[in-house]
């Protein structure tokens, strides 16, 4: 499972497809205080980024993808 709640932290691991957007949304909504750890994330679908953008949880770590690090993460930060 690539989206999971582990020890109070929502973690994104490996490839996270569009179908996991709903899982992520419900985890974020039911654990509003939980941080989201993306340090082990692989390719993550836009739908999941949109969930993070809307709900604005605290983000932990940086994924490998340079495009995400350089351009997408700042969007999440500025949105919160």
């Amino acid at each position, binding site marked *: 499972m690539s989206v999971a709640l582990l020890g109070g932290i929502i973690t994104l691991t490996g490839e996270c497809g569009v179908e996991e*957007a709903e899982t992520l*949304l419900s985890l974020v909504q039911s654990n509003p205080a939980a941080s989201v750890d993306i340090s082990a994330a692989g390719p993550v679908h836009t*739908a999941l980024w*949109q969930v993070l953008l809307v709900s604005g949880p605290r983000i932990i770590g940086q994924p490998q993808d340079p*495009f995400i690090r350089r351009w997408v993460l700042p969007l999440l930060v500025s949105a919160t």
Partner: protein
Amino acid sequence: MDELMAQFIVEARELVQASIDDLFVLEAEPGNSPRLDSAFRAVHTLKGSTGLFDLGPLNSVLHKAEDNLGRVKSGTAVLDPVQIDAIVSVLEWIDECVDDLESVGAVGVAKLERALQLEAALDTDFDPTVTKPVGDAGPSIAWALSLAVSKGNNASVALRYQPQAESFFSGDDPLALLAQVPGIIHLSVKPRDPWPAPALFDPFRSNLVFEALSEAPLEQVEAIFRLVPDQVQLVPLGAAVTLDETVAEPVEANIDVSRSLRVDPARIDALLDLVGELMTTKNAVTVLGTMAAGLADGADLARAIADAHKDLDRLTGALYGGVLQTRMVPLSQAFRRLPRMVRDLSRRLGKPTELLIEGDAFEADKTIVDELFEPLLHLVRNAMDHGIEAPAERFAADKPATAILSLRVVVDGDHIAVSLSDDGRGIDPTAIRAAAQRKGLVSVERAAQLDEREMLDLLFVPGFSTAAAVSDLSGRGVGLDAVRMAAARVGGSVNLASRIGLGTTTTLRLPVSFALTQLLVVSVGGERYGVPMQAVVETVRIAPAAVTPIRSNRAFILRDRTMPLLSLSDLLGLPNNEPAGDMTALVLAVADQQVGIVIDAIEERMETVTRPLSGVLSGMRGIAGTTVLGDGRVLLVLDLAELVA
């Protein structure tokens, strides 16, 4: 042909070329306003001059193109690749019409009929309702301009990407698409509609609008979004944005053309002929000197003649150099159609390719530059067809998707080396060897001894090109023998180097101009011919006993080597009257093999200007060129390699 029309034909070609060059630059740099001005000017002039003749359809299509460019200039429209294509098609069509005008004096009916279609293309693809004014920026692109001004003045494209709400369902991943945009210098996102209450938020619907700036050419960005054109808005930046900082300076390049004097090449050739004769006459003065020295009290006279001869020598040399200089043209003339071709081929073959040209300002004799064009065309086509891989294959090989084709000119003494390199898949020499063997072009024993260089050399063997199997190989080969022949015609050579997986480089080495050549004048069947000394290894006398008939052919033995013996009179189709006794023969090196050629006699050696055949004669097999003798007679200079082949 009337003089006005003749002038129009020359000018029209230049203007077409100049404006196409400008448009290609504009495609990559939409903000280059000097090139826009220059393109506009060229199309305007072209339109004006078609008005002088009965060329109504040309005039009206050009009028439309000029209007469109005018709108771009005034900032009320954007020059997108579609529009550039439409205008380039018009210009290429004009070029074809000019060809007709030159050859038959009128434009063919079929060509004229294309006018409407071309005009329509200018129209439909340039709907001003789509491209909103840049000047009083309508709401739709104001964002692009403000983004460019605030976030990056170097950006060439602003894009606004608004994925459809349902796009996640249809399998799109908008950020993954954006990640492919090269040269991103800004990315921002905002909701298309205000975010709904958390309970109503649907994670499977996109409510995002991305805005980004890129430094990449519009075309590249456009290619990425080709599947979602309705969801993205691309605005080429430049004109409005960069104009503020760079005050446009007029481009000088196109003005140079009109400053120079246009001379019919035939007049210069006539001059060159005269210089050649002058040289021969000059040599006669040496003889006068010798004669004077032989007179009883001729010492003073001989000295005076020698002094005069020295001056004459210096002056004729300078004159010869000066006349040759007027024939020098930049190599860019041979290259000018190549960017068009590469662009066209890369689209048609689906192999994105960039052509880099370096050193095209170097000059060479017009004949050589003219000769260069066709072989280059061949080589470029080969490289794109066979050398460069499809993007998927390049991707698998860890190469950038866009292939690089690089054309470099290096000057090397009195030669130029023009090399075309691709970063494609290279050629497997063993595959070439196998194919040549299958074709029977090389024997099994010989094939086994070949080193890599010699294997690649098989590509140049006449007959290899016709092998249908070539296209299955990783190689090329189509018409490479023709390329080598063309190079040899002007005294040049070709060679090819390739590394599997890395690419292929073909280099044409050509003389910069026609230097004086050493000729051996030989007689055969009562006629005299010139043979370039460089082709002759040695001259020998052959005793009848040394000749062995082999079926209908003959061979002879020279220093323990057997070589074929041919007769020049047979090769030239002249009556054969070989003497019964010893024969005189030239030994030539032809394609790694020595051949003897029987002639009647060697007459003299001379240094002269050999000029390649032109016009109707240019196709004549076995003739390298002509030279004018001191008595005004023309001597044909043979290309023995071609005669023997």
